[in-house]
């Protein structure tokens, strides 16, 4: 038989089940010895917390407002709109993959009402040629054969920006559920942005289609521009295509 002595005040004995005997020896002196240091420690902890509350508060680093106006010489030949949609919905227990998800799904199931919303916005990509890299040597005129050869700088692609406004495709918040806050929407947009950039960078189809449209437009425009006196015009682009995508 194992005996565990628990000192707690004076006088009584308790027997535990399953062959374990708890002996509670209540003693005023012992209690004082145990409680006093605990009280001292709690007081010290409370005072420390109060004193350090102001000092330990995590401060956000100061935001610097950045501004840049850059002189460029870009000839934009195509712009692509890419749409992205995201939804907010309660977690379902049947779809929970981890313990955390299951816990959150259980809590969601207990909440009164629904909280569903869908948001979307467009992101823009553009394809351009940097005309500052274009020199008169890039145009070759053969008066004998009446041919003009134009060699344009390589087509570059980049993210041009995204819609500032976010489209609310669906919104249903009922019962005792909290409305979707501006903080949440900003966070969703940030996550959508990160996911979209990854998708665009990992899928060459976006860049390929944009570059193809730009090449076609650039060839048509410069052929027309250089087409004088019935010369036939051949437009080509330098090979180093690339850019941010």
């Amino acid at each position: 038989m194992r005996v565990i002595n628990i000192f707690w005040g004076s006088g009584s004995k308790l027997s535990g089940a399953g062959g374990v005997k708890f002996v509670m020896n209540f003693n005023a002196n012992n209690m004082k010895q145990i409680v006093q240091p605990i009280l001292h420690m709690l007081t010290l902890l409370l005072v420390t917390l109060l004193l350090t509350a102001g000092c330990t508060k995590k401060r956000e680093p100061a935001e610097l407002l950045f501004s840049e106006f850059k002189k460029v010489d870009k000839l934009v030949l195509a712009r692509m709109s890419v749409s992205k949609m995201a939804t907010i919905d309660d977690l379902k227990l049947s779809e929970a993959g981890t313990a955390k998800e299951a816990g959150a799904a259980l809590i969601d199931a207990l909440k009164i009402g629904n909280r569903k919303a869908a948001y979307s916005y467009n992101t823009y990509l553009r394809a351009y040629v940097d005309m500052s890299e274009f020199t008169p040597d890039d145009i070759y005129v053969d008066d004998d054969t009446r041919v003009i050869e134009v060699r344009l700088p390589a087509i570059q692609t980049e993210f041009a920006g995204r819609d500032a406004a976010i489209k609310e495709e669906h919104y249903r918040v009922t019962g005792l559920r909290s409305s979707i806050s501006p903080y949440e929407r900003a966070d969703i947009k940030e996550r959508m942005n990160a996911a979209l950039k990854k998708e665009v960078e990992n899928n060459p189809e976006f860049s390929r289609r944009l570059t193809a449209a730009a090449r076609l437009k650039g060839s048509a425009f410069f052929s027309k521009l250089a087409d004088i006196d019935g010369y036939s015009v051949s437009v080509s682009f330098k090979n180093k295509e690339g850019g941010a995508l």
Partner: protein
Amino acid sequence: MRYLKITVLLVILAAVVGVAMWWKQTPEYSRVRMEDAKIADITPMVSLCTIDFYQDVPIRANKGSRHFFGKMTLTGSIGFDLEHMRQESRGDTLKVWLPQEIITIDESTAEGSYKVIDTWNDKLLGKSGFTTAEENEIKRKIMESFRRGLYSSGQVAKARREAVESLTSMLEAFTRRKVVVIYR
């Protein structure tokens, strides 16, 4: 007996630490589901951009007693649509009229380009939230004000001067004629 107490305490402590570590390592869950990005459209164009900008702007707004404070990063360009420029040939000279500028202002795709820093209500117990429509309206006004700022700060005038210079040299190289670019 003392060893038994210590062993029990150590076992409990190890179990607590183990559960905490396992919980920490479990991936975070999210109530947000993403759809795949889709190409909405591709617009071919010929637009000469002479100024690109990138600027952080603070957002301060209020609707009644509700207040909004945040930050957004705007990006865009000042460009000129070369497909629709008027031109006239006079002898060896090509006269071209620079088209009206097109100012494109978007929110940047750089990380952290839109942050809501604070929303509050002057009234005690008043709601401090803003709807999507209200938030969009606030942003629209900020962008309009930024657009006006581009004119008043002389950036548009600068973009026009650059465009005249760039277009003149480009057209002269292609047409092999004297080119005069006019902006009115």
